[in-house]
């Protein structure tokens, strides 16, 4: 615990940089116009700082345009999963009607052993190359776990004496559920979102890598890794550059999530 400041700050800067670079590339990359002339496949020629890919496209340009799907689909999927699953979980936890709770949660229990792989491949095959469909599929396989997590966290908070005390003070519904229950759920949810986003990035990337997802000529990072890997020995950057972007994002996010988990755990220890 000595010199916590030094130890804590350096990785924060590192992990933040790791996350921010791919994120910026994903958000602003498509607006950058490079004017790179198309070349021949797998060239390491001048004019292409990172060489060309299997279609003769500039790898740097691909890097700038390929993040939107690679990260966007994953982030979108997690957002949707939390929107749906979080809502289900919160409602199930806060309802006084046992049947409503059962109605919301039981079906999810039944879905739990459904292999997410199957769902995603079915959707991917059914709606060829649709980013939206894959995003929704990835979201769908995450809904049951998210719902259960949120419900458990909310239930923990909502059934405790704190809520009783707040009710004894005639605190408003909003005051209780947003002010206290929501805030108590936030800790576990934040920690979970961290890992869930990296998992979603992996899942989306794997689907695209396997050729089940986006069109094989899409500039997406995972697609690039997949399609260009046969040229790995001819022009390594076509594979390594997008791979590094993905890794930077997931690694940075992992580090941030780890830090968050540590923080919440330390807080829990203090309060115990």
């Amino acid at each position, binding site marked *: 615990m000595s010199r916590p400041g030094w130890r804590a700050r350096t990785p924060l800067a590192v992990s933040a940089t790791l996350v921010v670079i791919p994120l910026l590339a994903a958000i602003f990359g498509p607006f950058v116009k490079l004017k790179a002339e198309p070349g021949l496949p797998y060239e390491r020629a001048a004019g292409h700082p990172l060489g060309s890919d299997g279609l003769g496209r500039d790898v740097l340009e691909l890097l700038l345009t390929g993040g939107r799907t690679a990260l966007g689909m994953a982030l979108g999927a997690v957002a949707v999963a939390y929107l749906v699953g979080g809502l289900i979980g919160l409602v199930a936890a806060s309802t006084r009607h046992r049947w409503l709770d059962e109605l919301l949660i039981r079906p999810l229990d039944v879905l739990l052993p459904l292999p997410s792989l199957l769902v995603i491949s079915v959707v991917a095959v059914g709606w060829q190359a649709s980013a939206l469909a894959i995003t929704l599929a990835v979201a769908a396989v995450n809904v049951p776990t998210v719902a259960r997590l949120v419900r458990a966290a909310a239930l923990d908070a909502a059934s*405790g*004496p*704190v809520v*009783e*005390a*707040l*009710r*004894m*003070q*005639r*605190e408003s519904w909003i005051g209780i559920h947003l002010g*206290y229950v929501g*805030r108590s759920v936030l800790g576990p949810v934040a920690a979970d979102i961290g890992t869930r986003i990296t998992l979603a990035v992996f899942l989306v990337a794997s689907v695209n890598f396997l050729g089940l997802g986006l069109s094989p000529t899409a500039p997406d990072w995972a697609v690039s890794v997949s399609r260009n890997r046969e040229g790995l020995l001819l022009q390594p950057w076509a594979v390594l550059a997008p791979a590094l972007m993905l890794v930077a994002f997931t690694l940075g996010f992992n580090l941030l999530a780890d830090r968050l988990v540590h923080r919440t755990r330390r807080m829990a220890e*203090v*309060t*115990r």
Partner: protein
Amino acid sequence: MKPLVQVTRLSAYAGKAVIVDGVDFEVWPGQVTALVGASGSGKTTSALALLGEHGDQVRLFGQVEVAGEVVVDSNGPTSAAAGVRGRVVAYMPQHPGSALNPARRIGAGLHELEKLHHPGEDVVTEALRAAQLPSDRATLRRFPHQFSGGQRQRIALAQALTCRPRVLVLDEPSTGLDSVTRLQLVGELLELAAEGLGILLLSHDLDLVRALAQYVVVLDAGQVIASGGPEVLPEPVDLPIEPATKQSAEPLLEAANLSASVRPRGRDPILREVDLSVRPGSCLGVVGRSGSGKTTLARCLAGLHERHTGRITLDGRDLPVLRKRSAEQNRRVQYVWQEVRGSFDERRPVLDQVARTARRLRNLAAEQAEAEAVATLARLGVSALVAARPPSQLSGGELQRAALARALLAQPDVLICDEITTALDEHGTALVVELLRELTTQGTALVWISHDLGLVAAVADHVLVIDHGRVAERGAPVAVMTRPSTEVARRLVRAARVGHEPPPPVLTLSADTRSNPQ
């Protein structure tokens, strides 16, 4: 005879803070030495030094000699310390329940210690016998969670005894015990001392110390302020039993035929057919053994326990469960939780949470509410500075008083207090009692739940004795305390006299069946 433990000029520092400051004491075989003092006075820190143990960031100085081995010298703990652990000094921690490995059968834990310290001897059976536990195979094969709280405490004792130590250190062994169980503990410890064991007792329960100790060391802020025989302790005070008064007005809160259960449709009731009534300005005391249903009764009245049948009325009108109460009904009936720490939001300052009551239930402005909160807390001995912190930074006693203030800010007509003095020392208790007395004179009715019969007798006008969810006995405190008519009441009252007069013969343990494992 030489002392088993000789502590000389022991000091402990946490950073620059001095936790223990030049403490001396001895433990003799066959005798009980007690370390007493307010919470935070350094009792645990001093006792752990016998094992050469200390908390994070804490440094020990001075000299501790245990059975001839120096375990702490001027450079802190020595390598000899590891050798005395278990075999020479066995420590029973402050919360023995959590000191048992939930994943191991108790037999495994006991036999492990036997093999380590006394291989080949049958010390386990003997230790269990001394801890008044059966030593059959079925008991040994159970997991800790399959025992009641009191039994768990005795298992921890048995573990310590399995090491066959020469010194037994007991840290606050009586917290949370009802008077009967506490009395059993006294008997067990006296027997052990009689067998030649040296006992170091840490407690702020002065009655317990009076009943056990030959030597008493009083600590305050890490320093010894007095030491000697039990006579250094203040005289036991028997709070005067006030005669019942003011029976004039109509009943304010009434409950008729009240039953409650934790399972749906009233299965396995934990409260059965209770009738009670409280008049304005009066105080109803509720006593009973642990697990008898006192809290459940209180929660029914407060409207928090929804699975109940029967009728509760306020001013003659039906009083529904909390979420159906009107704002006015809500304000008029307030409840103070038994487990206070759990009833505060960890993320907000305590003061805000206290003041919130006045804002929500009495529509006061923010500043006004806060001023009132500060004033009430101050009367209870909690400064605004302390209350501005989040709950985790308050001591148990401070929090208990804050919870009371939180309820009082509603200016309730009925206040239900569930063991609200357990974490308080005598001064704190006096502050609370004084404030509540003042309120009753203004017409507030109290429902007072407590293990401390003396206190109940002092504050209550009428007493209910609850046993297994039923009212076993009721009447004026004088009558119940002096001429108890039921067995439960008799046992509770007799056991409560520990430390005030020579202890009665140890009660048989076989009667303790209330919390058998399922």
